[in-house]
């Protein structure tokens, strides 16, 4: 039971939970959350792949990739949330 095994399985489970949410969630905001979960799950897999038994230091390339992934994901989230806000405003105007 090394940490890479434990957290690797965790990452896959988190991705799967996000996948269920992204496919089934009804609420717009919650679907964004589900996609965020997927991205963290994918990040886990890369970080786990980079892990080496201490005292060896881990592989830095996947770390850089995950950082890139995190920044990309925050951009995508911001756009999705802006769309949600805009839509909500338009829908509220129509209902009035």
């Amino acid at each position, binding site marked *: 039971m090394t940490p890479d095994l434990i957290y690797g399985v965790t990452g896959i489970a988190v*991705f799967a939970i996000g*996948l269920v949410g*992204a496919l089934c969630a009804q609420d*717009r905001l919650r*679907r964004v959350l589900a*996609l965020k979960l*997927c*991205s963290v*799950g*994918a990040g886990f*897999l*890369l970080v*786990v*792949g980079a892990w080496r038994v201490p005292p060896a230091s881990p*592989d830095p*390339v*996947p770390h850089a*990739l995950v950082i*890139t*992934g995190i920044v*990309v994901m925050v*951009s*995508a989230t911001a*756009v*999705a949330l802006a*769309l*949600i806000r*805009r*839509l909500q405003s*338009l*829908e509220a105007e*129509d209902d009035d």
Partner: protein
Amino acid sequence: MMIDPLTLTLFIPLFGAIGAFVFPRVASAIGLASVLVTVGAVAALARDILAQSEVTIALGGWEPPLGISLRADGLSVAMLAMTGVVGLLVSIGAFDSLKDARQRQYFWPLWLLLLTGMNGVYLSTDIFNLYVMIEVIALAAVGLTVLSGTKAALRAGLEYMYASILGALLFLLGVGFVYLQIGRLDFAGLIAAEPTGAMSAALALMVVGLLLKTALFPLHFWLPAAHANATAPASALLSGLVVKAALYIFLRLTTYMPLPDEILVTLVGALGAGAVLWGGIQAFRAERLKMLVAWSTVVQIGLIFIAFARAGQVGLTESWKAAALLILAHGVAKAAMFLSAGRIKDEIGHDIIRDLDRSEIRPTLAQFTFALAAISLIGLPPSLGFIGKWSLLEGAMAAGYWHWVVVTMIGTLMSVAYFSRVFAGFLRFDRMRGEIAEHKGWALADIAPLTLAISAISLGLMAAPILSFIELGYPFGARP
């Protein structure tokens, strides 16, 4: 010292986007100029490819697998050229047809970023880099989808956003598995990899992610609304070009990592067949012209995947070429069709197919353009679409895959049927009592789709040189 055209192909649209965003007043001029220069760079690159059949640059001087290298061969330059030329003509159309100052101000930077992303995809040789590129494309494309700001467009844009993020994340997880197994991310590593469980999982994840992004039936749910509700230039870019980026990645990936089982190949083809049939039915039932055109994109993607399915077995270069030709043909013709549909909508004021023949205004030139584009999409000779379909059928018949022949023929007949609905609207005059005018006025925006439609037809006459160009640098499999 000159900078090589390969690098410029990426950086010119990027700097153009920055310029167009920082100086919104002259965004159109900057945008048009950068697209023009990009096409110039692609032309220079094409000359290099003709001379040396492939160009590779290790960025930063770091060779893969540590660094990322860019590689251009015949296929990628063909895609670049298609993107550049279609993009240039759409840009000319947009230069004229985007009236709203705000739309214009945001259209150019987003479109140039999109161009950067697509050029990046066609030159990339690294799967993580491809992930970043498809995200660049996704964000810019969603921005373009919702440019009109209507509620329908925003809803469609949000669905599109969910689909493309999920597709990209599936791809990213696939990248993670590739890293776990082989510890590198470049194409050369993929080619050398042994097929193991982790590699199959990686391939499955990446393929499903890409299918979601290309909207292959039944993952097409986001496409029709997104493409039909965008403004005309944005629709042309989305349908003609953006979908092709994911298709291209699929083509490359499955060349380097063949699908492990014949059944999976058949499954991809079956999904393609489903897309052809279901998309055809929906296109036939569509009420709005742009919706019909969008569904026809679903059909065409299905057709391309049938070509892929034929090509699944090793060594069937002909079918790969058929797929590549269909991709090019669809890019040109669909852009023409969406632009002309947009012109028709602008002139008549609506795009309800049933009421096309009740209009007092008959934008004949736009209608003619639409018909020309339809000829290529249906696959009538001598269009490029015909050549693509023909090589698909030829390959299928030679190998005795009659079921694919039947599906392709049914799809062709259906496309004749649904495009005829539109032609009937164009050609019937008996339901109008009053004067019928030709159009409200000529526009520069008419020239762009017409040029595209004419090239979709006439490129068919140049199919042989195109085919031999695509083969430069051995894009389809290992070199001899």
